[in-house]
């Protein structure tokens, strides 16, 4: 090969960025379709049934925030070549733990006291669960799917057994308003954007972690080729432990957001969430083989699924088909990505 001739050399674009752009195009496309329908559908003088802030915040951003927060954590795990299917159980356990701790406080307890407890308890529970996952995977050299399949069941079981009632706070009790009404349900301009804000902070953190920190590079390296990473002196076990801990932490945070938003947590909180979370991460471009994925991709992947869910409501499609449509969307998204990567490989060889 000779020196590249000016003008003929294709501009190198980070493949992750190309994928993010592709996902953004899908988001714009979906939003446009729904927007046009919503405009057409609206009664005369009424706002667009899709493009109105209430739908965008309450119908899309808030419900997707739990998924997105966890999808970022799970994306980190998937980049290392692992998987974490216990996140839904961890979220439930964290929300219940948070509720159990917070219900001991009076309803009008001071904001500092309440918020520190509201953050520390669920996050600590999430972190511990993540450490257990990571510790078993690294220490016993077990496959992450098996370990988190086991802990998914254990954590959910603990969520069933530990609280005195099926739903917390217990009958007659209420969570402090400093956490619920005045924080997670804080109204700004008639909207409650706190879950959205926390989700965006998580995306920013995930982006920063993966793009700017040595830790992020180590995450990609280990997923790209664990043995070569080890041969280069990376502490593979430590990096994995850290990654599963972060996934646990993210699930704990999602538990906290859900607890603050609903004011309650139950033993069935977040049941089945793990599959949507993994689907979001994968639609967002994380490769189950490892070495590939981004935080922004995870956000966009979650957003695509959330738009489809919302679209089913906006278009007044039968709810019974929800699962079928979402399943199809996942498979289509991943096959498109696969096709584009085959195409990319052809053009880069």
């Amino acid at each position: 090969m000779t020196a590249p001739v000016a003008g003929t050399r294709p501009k190198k674009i980070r493949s992750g960025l190309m994928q993010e752009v592709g996902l953004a195009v899908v988001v714009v496309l979906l939003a446009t379709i729904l927007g046009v329908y919503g405009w057409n559908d609206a009664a005369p003088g009424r706002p667009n049934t899709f493009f109105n802030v209430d739908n965008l915040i309450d119908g899309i951003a808030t419900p997707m925030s739990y998924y997105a927060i966890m999808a970022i954590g799970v994306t980190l795990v998937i980049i290392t070549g692992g998987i974490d299917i216990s996140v839904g159980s961890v979220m439930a356990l964290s929300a219940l733990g948070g509720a159990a701790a917070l219900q001991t406080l009076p309803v009008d307890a001071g904001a500092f006291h309440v918020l520190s407890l509201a953050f520390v308890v669920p996050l600590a529970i999430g972190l511990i669960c993540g450490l257990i996952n990571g510790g078993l995977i690294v220490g016993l050299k077990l496959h992450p799917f098996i370990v988190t399949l086991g802990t998914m069941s254990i954590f959910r079981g603990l969520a069933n057994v530990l609280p005195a009632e099926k739903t917390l706070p217990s009958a007659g009790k209420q969570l402090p308003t400093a956490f619920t009404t005045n924080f997670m349900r804080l109204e700004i301009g008639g909207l409650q954007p706190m879950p959205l804000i926390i989700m965006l902070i998580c995306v920013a953190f995930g982006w920063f972690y993966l793009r700017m920190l040595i830790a992020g590079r180590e995450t990609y390296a280990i997923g790209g080729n664990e043995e070569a990473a080890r041969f280069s002196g990376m502490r593979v076990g430590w990096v994995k432990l850290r990654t599963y801990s972060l996934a646990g932490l993210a699930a704990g945070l999602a538990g906290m957001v859900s607890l603050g938003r609903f004011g309650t947590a139950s033993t069935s909180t977040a049941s089945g969430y793990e599959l949507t979370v993994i689907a979001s991460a994968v639609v967002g471009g994380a490769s189950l083989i490892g070495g590939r994925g981004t935080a922004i991709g995870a956000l966009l992947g979650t957003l695509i699924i959330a738009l489809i869910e919302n679209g089913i409501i906006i278009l007044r499609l039968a709810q019974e088909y929800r699962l079928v449509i979402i399943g199809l969307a996942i498979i289509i998204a991943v096959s498109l990505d696969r096709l584009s990567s085959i195409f990319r490989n052809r053009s880069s060889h």
Partner: protein
Amino acid sequence: MSAPFIQFRSITKTFGGVAALTDVTLSIPRGECHGLMGENGAGKSTLGKILAGIHKPEKGEMEIDGHLHVFSSPRDALAAGVAMVHQELAFCPELSVAENLSMGRYPKKFGAILDRAKMNAQAEELLAAIGVKLDVRSKMGDLSTAQEQIVQIAAAVGTNPRILIFDEPTSSLSAPEAERLFELIESLKVRGITMIYVSHRMPELFRLCDKISILRDGRYVGELSGPEMTESAVVRMMIGRDVESYFPNHLDGAPGEIVLKVRNLSSPGRFREVNFELRAGEILGFAGLVGAGRSEIAKAIFGLDPQAKGHVELDGKNLPLGSIRTSLDAGISLVPEDRKRQGCILGMACSANISMAVLPALTKAGMLDRTREKQISEKYFAELSIKAASPEAPVNSLSGGNQQKVVLAKWLAKGGRVLIVDEPTRGVDVGAKAAIHALIDQLARQGLAVILISSELPELINLSSRVIVMREGRLVGEIPRTQLDQESVLRLMAGVASAN
């Protein structure tokens, strides 16, 4: 000369805009063993793969025995009597030899039940057909690389091919193993099978092939036959100019102080009671068959063998074994034998691969310092003349030689006292090979203590200050440079007679 048996006409193949083959016209008579040579990326493997139905050319036609053929899959090629022995071996390591050999065409009883006895008998027959005896019940994963290769050839011959393509068949074989392979190929030639032999290694091409075609940058350069087949002629055609044979510079300087001292190093089942010393500015060659324990010693010193026992001293200080990080921090680097599995992260950018071992030091305000990372990779891109679209290009877009340079750059960026290179030029083209040799030599000249493990005797003999020979896990001899020749090393390796 009779009409050509295989005729390529104006074959052009591009991979996404990059031409791998341009207008290649080539004919091969029946029963010939035809060599294909060229640097990595010259297109020789691509041509073989087109004939085997793996790639489809954009332009041109292919004739076999006067019939025009268009293959759209290896299955089509197989039906036309073309089989290929691949460079990378593809087997199921958990299945037996017999199960692997009859993969996809398992003999059945009662329509559904696997006929194990028949399957084993078929496998034995296939192996016997090429004169090999092997327990067909043994697990594929338990075989040596050489044995795996033989099984692959048995599978290819078992399809009764008219044409057999070999792609770098000796790249992971030691000299005596390769010798057995050559005898096998010669016996196939006697049977009248037309063969295409793709390789980097000239001696084996000269020995096996009737003619050699040379490709350069995807174009057909010419062919050599009989007495024209000389090393200098081939190299001239391959790279388009003459090259001088390489003589190392590091020998000019006197060897420095002892850097590495190894005493009674043993690891159960791998090697026993190994003793040697390594000086600064020295290249210590390690010769031996694959499995003689050379790479295993390297891994033990690098901290990869938790069972290794013994005493290793670096600069007079005891080096505890069993931790890569301890060895790394002490200044030991290893360029491992398996570049794709252990050396580099194929999907990651070159710059990220080069910075991998120095990442902890590459921080600014707690963040990854991308500016310095870029400087480091640009520095080594220039110094090692790594050829890639850019330092941000993924390693798997590079040729084998350039991938290896990236791995070397990773360790050069790290710096250190001892550099262990294990098969540094495996699967690397002639030009890159010379560059890697020069680089290793230059590093020794600069005072690095180098251990060179290689199955290529010319490489060991040309580069090393002295060579240690291993057999079955033991050091069986040490030959100083003045007495180094292929024969003496080979004798020690095979255990024919002691040099002393």
